[in-house]
């Protein structure tokens, strides 16, 4: 049994930022990070970006901390190990290799994993996912020989992969269950706007389509769809969603929904146990609701806050998170909570006959989220509007009027 003051499960952005922050506040307390990946902290964002994927920048750019950073900061990093049980009374975490750690303070920053494609034949060579560095190494290998590629699911993964695969010279078919790209997160007009850039780049989109079976020998040769059509492809990138793996925590008494439940201080219901990043389902004091948001910057900021709180500087996590991406000449950003839940309404703001579209998600009298197509320069202004809790109930016309400057909402708030 190893005793450690701060034990962090997860070596991604949330876990690493927490360790970094703790070390700044507590120069001596022992810190151990357990990661189930074989690699130190790297950029998951970079995995699906052209500069890295196409080899235009050195592979080493992927590392976000030098190897020496860990010993220099007296942070012990254990790679390739999975936590298998948590005993909150004895304060012990056991690992899959039989080792166990007794902690004073524990952070659960285990992230999320891809949902595996539940289709017959999805275990064939050539079926891949995009989440980890190993996933991308596999995709980069397949790209060398494949001529035709398919991407499954309408979201960031498909959007970014379709771009990369076209840049790599593949024929690309994008297969979605929905009527348009990114339904129901986007409205049809915004979805079609994204589709247009995909189609202009030569991507074929099949709508309302679901795979019935993957055909081929050891390797995929084609995808048989429910309606009998066949899509030929030597590689398939599946982006049908992620989930947090919390099964190992069953029986620990930890409260879990889709994620690990936490309050605004990122504290779980168990003493001295915090959660941060993709895995945390926490009370967001700005949105006024319990949410599970998965994106890089959100995890980064949450990891920092959890680190401060674990080191004794307790404050609520208050941050309007966002994720932005670009490709094929379009840019897309999602801010705050964009889930199209019942009771929410949407205010649309259209520029240049719909070449750029902002959609504000309204809950009660305020904005809780927004989707931006080709208008990411307004990202921070809108994040501030959400953070400032601006009452928009009788100002919906201003929101949709492109002649009204959005920053006006925030400056008025400061004066108020």
């Amino acid at each position, binding site marked *: 049994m190893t005793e450690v003051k701060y034990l962090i499960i997860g070596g991604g952005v949330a876990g690493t930022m927490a360790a970094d922050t703790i070390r700044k506040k507590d120069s001596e307390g022992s810190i151990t990070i357990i990661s189930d990946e074989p690699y130190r902290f790297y*950029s998951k964002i970079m995995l699906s970006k052209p*500069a*890295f994927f196409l080899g235009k920048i050195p592979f080493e750019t992927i590392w*976000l901390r030098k190897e020496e950073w860990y010993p220099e900061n007296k942070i012990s990093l254990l790679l390739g190990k999975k936590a298998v049980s948590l005993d909150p009374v004895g304060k012990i975490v056991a690992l899959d290799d039989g080792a166990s750690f007794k902690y004073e303070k524990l952070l659960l920053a285990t992230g999320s994993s891809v949902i595996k494609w539940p289709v017959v034949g999805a275990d064939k060579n050539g079926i891949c996912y995009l989440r980890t560095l190993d996933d991308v190494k596999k995709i980069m290998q397949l790209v060398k020989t494949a001529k035709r590629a398919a991407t499954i699911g309408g979201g960031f993964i498909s959007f970014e992969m379709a771009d990369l695969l076209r840049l790599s010279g593949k024929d690309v078919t994008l297969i979605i269950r929905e009527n348009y790209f990114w339904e129901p997160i986007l409205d049809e007009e915004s979805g079609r706007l994204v589709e247009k850039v995909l189609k202009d780049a030569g991507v074929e989109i099949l709508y309302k389509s679901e795979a019935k079976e993957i055909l081929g020998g050891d390797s995929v040769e084609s995808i048989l769809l429910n309606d009998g059509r066949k899509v030929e492809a030597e590689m398939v990138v599946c982006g049908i969603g992620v989930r947090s793996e919390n099964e190992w925590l069953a029986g620990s008494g930890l409260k879990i929904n889709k994620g690990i439940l936490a309050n605004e201080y990122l504290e779980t219901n168990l003493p001295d146990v915090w959660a941060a990043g993709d895995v945390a389902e926490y009370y967001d004091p700005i949105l006024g609701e319990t949410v599970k948001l998965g994106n890089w910057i959100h995890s*980064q900021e949450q990891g920092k806050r959890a680190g401060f709180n674990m080191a004794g500087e307790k404050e609520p996590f208050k941050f309007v*998170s966002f994720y*932005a*991406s670009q490709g094929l000449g379009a840019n897309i950003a999602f801010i705050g909570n964009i889930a199209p839940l019942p009771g929410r309404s949407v205010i649309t703001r259209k520029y240049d006959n719909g070449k750029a579209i902002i959609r504000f998600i309204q809950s009660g009298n305020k904005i809780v989220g927004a989707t931006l197509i080709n208008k990411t320069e307004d990202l*921070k202004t809108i994040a501030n509007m959400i953070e400032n809790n601006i009452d928009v109930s009788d100002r919906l016309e201003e929101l949709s009027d492109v002649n009204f400057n959005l920053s006006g909402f925030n400056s008025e708030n400061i004066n108020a």
Partner: protein
Amino acid sequence: MANQQEYQRSRPDSKIAKIVVDRDLCISAASCIGVAPEAFELDAESKAILKNTADSVDDETLMMAAQSCPTKAILLFDNDGKQIYP
């Protein structure tokens, strides 16, 4: 190396004399804006640019913003022109 925006800092207590955004590397993940909204914003091409209020941001925050960039598109230089990040 052409597609870069340079910003000369003029803050006496700062060890960071120059900030550079490599626009080819920037992928508008916008993490810098989350960390240092007084220093960075996105332009109409969705690339990070330096704001004229960047001098108000202290060195530690700037370093955190640069470190937060998932593509290492923010480069920091000291008074002798030596690159200090990444």
